[in-house]
């Protein structure tokens, strides 16, 4: 639906049609005005009401009884939860039906989070009830609802009737109707009873939870944690995350949330120091963005880039981050390699892989394949001799050969063919190097060497 031709725009903009009136009395419109009329009729004496006998349902309760309201105001309550502030506020909206104008009178705060009030049900006056009291069964009612015809849920007052209605809606597989019935049940049943019944009605339960989610009224455990994304200020976000630590997460998730809090705490400290950008490295490579709210690995990369070599005691040092967040060696090496290669600190790159054995010899060892190391170095435009050193460390001769050829490390190609005793390939390769060059002479020497036992 995204295509709009100019002529379409012109059409939409230039249409002049017959005037629209709000007092259409068509069927749909009547329905929409139901509640408005209900409100109005509470206030004025209903002259048409010639039926003085109060209607009583089978259970003996009066039907369509008027709620006890002040004569000229109708109060409409709704409650919003404001969970992370630890209190709920009751917003009181007052309608003055005569004018039907709207204003917010007061916002009253409660400290007790469990307080919950519901809108009193709009009851239709007796005269109107007559039309609706035609005995629609639960089945008929939900069917009428699905077709968008007039219906009334008022007569479903006993728990049994309400549940029949709900089950009927569920059996229709129409989520729209299921939710409509649930909204009615929410208004007319206590939360405890409603949940008790929903526990054994999975489909209805999921509709209800989704409805609450969309309305922003109820937050499942993780939804509660998700709230932090709405908090812009990093200090408040950190405090909010801290408050999440006490939530009953699973063991694993609790650890992740703890990490999240610690990470943001560190980032705030680092950011405060680095924002000024006084060290030389910041002048040479100005920061592109703040480190706040970045993922852990991005933070580690940042730390390897700007704070490499700092002692483990400082929060901003790679060593500290690595230890605090239990970062695997593989992950650490990958990230540090990326950062140091970006800075072209080939010496740091070297020392990442250097290990000393018990005799004191240095040897290169890596938890990631050296072909991957080469890949990263190459992407960071490493000079030929650095690249060559690492290509040479690739274990698998096939892989080594293909990368050596790709990056034109002639010596390695030649040596590998020599190791593989592949004279034919060596001759083929001789055609690819510059005639008379050092490589050319080396190959020449090798293929004439009678001491090598070539396989071909």
């Amino acid at each position: 639906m995204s295509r709009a031709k100019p002529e379409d725009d012109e059409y939409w903009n230039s249409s002049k049609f017959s005037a629209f009136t709000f007092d259409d009395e068509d069927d749909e419109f009547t329905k929409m005005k139901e509640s408005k009329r209900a409100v109005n009729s509470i206030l004025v004496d209903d002259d048409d009401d010639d039926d003085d006998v109060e209607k009583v349902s089978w259970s003996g309760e009066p039907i369509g009884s008027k709620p006890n309201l002040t004569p000229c105001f109708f109060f409409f309550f709704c409650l919003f939860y404001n969970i992370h502030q630890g209190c709920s506020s009751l917003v009181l909206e007052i309608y003055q039906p005569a004018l039907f104008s709207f204003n917010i009178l007061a916002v009253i705060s409660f400290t007790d989070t469990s307080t919950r009030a519901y809108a009193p049900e709009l009851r239709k006056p007796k005269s109107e009830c007559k039309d609706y009291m035609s005995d629609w069964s639960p089945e008929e009612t939900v069917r009428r609802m699905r077709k968008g015809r007039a219906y009334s849920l008022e007569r479903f007052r006993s728990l049994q009737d309400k549940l029949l209605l709900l089950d009927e809606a569920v059996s229709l597989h129409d989520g729209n109707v299921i939710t409509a019935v649930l909204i009615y049940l929410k208004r007319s049943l206590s939360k405890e009873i409603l949940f008790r019944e929903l526990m054994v009605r999975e489909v209805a339960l999921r509709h209800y939870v989704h409805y609450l989610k969309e309305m922003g009224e109820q937050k499942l455990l993780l939804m509660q944690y998700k709230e932090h994304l709405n908090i812009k200020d990093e200090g408040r976000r950190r405090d909010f995350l801290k408050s999440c630590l006490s939530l009953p997460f699973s063991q694993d998730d609790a650890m992740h949330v703890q990490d999240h809090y610690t990470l943001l705490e560190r980032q705030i400290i680092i950011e405060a120091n680095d924002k000024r950008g006084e060290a030389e490295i910041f002048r040479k490579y100005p920061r592109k963005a703040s480190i706040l709210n970045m993922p852990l690995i991005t933070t580690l990369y940042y730390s390897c880039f700007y704070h490499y070599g700092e002692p483990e005691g400082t929060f901003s040092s790679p060593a500290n981050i690595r230890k605090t967040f239990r970062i695997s060696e593989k992950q650490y090496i990958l990230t540090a390699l990326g950062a140091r290669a970006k800075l072209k600190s080939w010496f740091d790159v070297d020392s990442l892989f250097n290990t000393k054995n018990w005799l004191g010899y240095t040897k290169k060892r890596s938890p990631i394949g050296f072909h991957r190391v080469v890949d990263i170095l190459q992407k960071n435009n490493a000079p030929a001799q650095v690249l060559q050193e690492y290509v040479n460390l690739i274990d698998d001769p096939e892989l080594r050969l293909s990368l050596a050829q790709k990056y034109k490390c002639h010596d390695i190609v030649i040596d590998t063919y020599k190791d593989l005793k592949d004279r034919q390939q060596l001759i083929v390769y001789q055609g690819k190097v510059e005639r008379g060059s050092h490589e050319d002479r080396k190959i020449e020497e090798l293929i004439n060497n009678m001491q090598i036992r070539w396989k071909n």
Partner: protein
Amino acid sequence: MYVIQAAAVRGRCAGCLMAQSGRRDAPELPDFSLLKRLARDQLIYLLEQQHEVDKLYKVELKPIVSTADQLCFLIRPRIQTVKWISDVVNLDKAAGRLRRYKIIFTPQKFYACEAVLEEQGVFGDVTCDEWAFYLLPLDDDIISLELPEFFRENFLEGDQRWVGAAGGALRLIHSLYGPFSKVYGIGQCAKMVYESWREQVEDGEQKTQQPEIGNVFLIDRDVDFITPLCSQVVYEGLVDDIFRIKCGSVEFGPEVTSSDKSIKVMLNSQDKVFNEIRNEHFSNVFGFLSQKARNLQTAYDKRRGMDIQQMKAFVSEELKGLKQEHRLLSLHIGASECIMKKKTKQDFQELLKTEHSLLEGFEVRECVSFIEEHINRQISMIDSLRLLCLLSLTENGLLPKDYRSLKAQYLQSYGIEHLLTFSNLKQMGLLVEQQPGETLTVMESKVGKLVNDKTAGKLTDAFSSLAKKSNFRALSKRLVLIPKSGEEYDLRVPRDMAYIFSGAYVPLSCKLIEQVLERDGWTGLEEITRMLNGHEFAVSGGANGTESRIKADSQRIVLVMFLGGCTYSEISALRFLGRERGYKFIVVTTAITNSGRLLEALLDNHP
């Protein structure tokens, strides 16, 4: 707004590049342009008959600056949008401003939305209408409901609000192109949509007419999650993966057009160049395009040595067509180059190799470490998630230690807020831990405590039972989804639907459709449906008396309705199947999807 299209005479797709050997007697497809006309007329009616409309607003959830004294909103029935409109109304009221408001919900209004209007005290100030716009024909054989939210709301949230709409869409098709003689289906939602449709048909009047569509197949997206999670390698799917096709059109940026502006192109069978390559494996596309370019050159070259009269004829008859073709050709060459560049950059070859190994169940440990490294290097967040899901689906869940470690590393690389994403994926059964059935519920109940309500603490208990096993290995064996490895697969002459995944995998969804059509039902597939959690059905339609008169042609037209979305690769596979077996498939889908869209719908890392 959709383009109001004149009912153009369509050049039917003839002479496709491959499968020339396919059956030529395939029936003609019904003309769906009628659907657009119907929808357009209804909207015009809504706007024309009742209200004087000055301007339609695109809802952006920002304050409205307008002097108009009536506002009309054309929206999807979403609570958030209705809340925003309520705020607009209440702000106006507070400022003492008198306005009239109209909401047109499409395709239907929900009671929950009206309840919001009521709750916000604007019911009555705002009036509502419905624009029953269910079906947008994207091409000769693709109709979309354009309801991407269907997927998440139905499969993750368990909200059946769109079942009625899907049933309604089916009813509309039925009344225009039916009656159907046979309806097959699999999946919980499919069954509900079928029932909803049946009831709606019973409510309405029954017409007798010549059927144009004989068979219908309804399938839930959760019957097959593997297929939409695989990288697409057929041209149309690749274009969708990389450039994102929206409502059948795509915007090619400067890197494709090799100029400084972007071009919007309609991608459908009207585009002659595209029509010939859309279903092709990408490896064939370059060859085809360069052949096409040579032909074009020859056609242009004809000009040489023409006399004035011939030149005149050439200019008036051929030149326009050639120029058009020239333009399209250069666009698709540009797009192909761009695809190549992007794919080589991200080590696509290795990615594909991992996907294929997972599908095959071969060298799984290597796959795990590839995925780990992918995560460690912070390469595409969606691709990492996609591989994790593929691993879980093909292996019936991850080993507990892998699950914990990969999840932790994922959160470290892409942000801890993805905790919610993992919880969603778990609930969907897309990314789970292998464990014996018992412990699952215990674990879940520990996790699933509600914060501010103890009564509802057991909520997620109910959900945990929903995560189901995928049984992919067993299914793949029974349905022979993985062709024997080692055999050379010539992608230019595909032998089965596996060509859409380089010959590595036959899409499960399409294989099921093939099998059911072949067997005229589910007989013999009992074991398979059991592994897919059942909910299969096959019902003969109501057209009993007229059975003999039903045109043989309509029997070979099969409408496949994907509930929760389908991919372009699946459509390509069905087109292939159609050519092989003499069927014509019409795909009706709640939306076109791909791995990116599918997973993005389940992300919860933003407010």
